[in-house]
């Protein structure tokens, strides 16, 4: 059993879309989970559907959504204070040192982050790279295992089959509840699934297929 799991992603909602099922499984086993959330998604273009946020109110709205999603998932939350869309321009080593300090305090047995260069959004790639570097900088004896999540369309061809394939259909409702906490983001990907409970069985099966499995690569140092 894991001792403590730390999830490191840059945006409010990455945790819910990317790993809510895996997180729920760990919580069910009684494993503490902490989310280190890099930014507040300040530069997101989804403003709710119909629109209820604007560029200046969005950060505070997304912060509240994030806190609510972490309550639903029953996990600890730390906000790292970087700014959306700028993580890749920060000094990689400084970010890695920042994360290393946090990891040494939390002392996790497992870290979940994005797979650098295969995670589509520049913030995903940059924070994933910094997290992997942070763990590399730790003493070998203290290093947690790292699971890296790829998102790019061609990642299975480039990276091969992920070695961690979590069937999270059992936690599907919990995952949807967490995703739907991020209401301001409902105009995009969420729009299609917002009413998943009213969907016909065929469409619902497609959503379950899309969100029912979470895949990761164990990082090799």
């Amino acid at each position, binding site marked *: 059993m894991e001792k403590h799991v730390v999830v490191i992603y840059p945006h409010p909602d990455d945790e819910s879309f990317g790993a809510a099922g895996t997180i729920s499984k760990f919580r069910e086993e009684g494993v503490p989970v902490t989310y280190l959330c890099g930014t507040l998604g300040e530069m997101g273009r*989804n403003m709710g559907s119909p*629109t209820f946020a604007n560029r*200046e109110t969005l950060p505070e709205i997304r912060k509240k959504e994030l806190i609510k999603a972490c309550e639903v998932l029953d996990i600890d939350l730390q906000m790292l204070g970087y700014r959306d869309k700028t993580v890749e321009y920060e000094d990689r080593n400084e970010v890695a040192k920042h994360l290393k300090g946090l990891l040494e305090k939390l002392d996790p047995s497992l870290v979940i982050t994005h797979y650098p260069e295969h995670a*589509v959004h520049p913030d995903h790639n940059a924070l994933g790279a910094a997290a992997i570097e942070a763990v590399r900088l730790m003493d070998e004896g203290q290093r947690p295992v790292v699971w890296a999540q790829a998102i790019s369309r061609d990642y299975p061809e480039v990276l091969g089959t992920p070695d961690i394939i979590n069937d999270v259909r059992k936690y599907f409702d919990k995952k949807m509840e967490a995703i739907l906490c991020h209401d301001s983001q409902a105009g995009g990907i969420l729009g299609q699934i917002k009413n998943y409970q009213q969907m016909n069985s065929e469409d619902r099966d497609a959503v379950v297929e899309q969100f029912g499995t979470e895949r990761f690569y164990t990082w090799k140092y």
Partner: protein
Amino acid sequence: MKPIKINEVQEKLDRFVNKKVYVHVETTNGAYASHFNDKAYNVGAYVRNANVTFSQAKIVGDGKVFRAGLKMEMGWIYAEGLTDWIIEDEAKLLLAGHDREGRLMVALQISETPFHY
């Protein structure tokens, strides 16, 4: 935000003329454009808290979609595709253009105090 009416917004713009102001200007089609459609391009730019002074400001449009231009001593600030506006925090003028799904595509914002950063 509410749909732009030229008279209302022009009046707000005029209040910032010849003052030292902070401007946020932005355009984006999202970080996933070419992920969802491999024929699409990811394009975007933003400037936050440019500290400028303009001597003229004008909003122009056909009643649905608007353009705004700010004339500075040594240049211009311009935004196209604006649809909605609001006064935020009592004194910050926010102009934005949204697509039919309500996603922000362009923004031009002016304030006498810095935008949160």
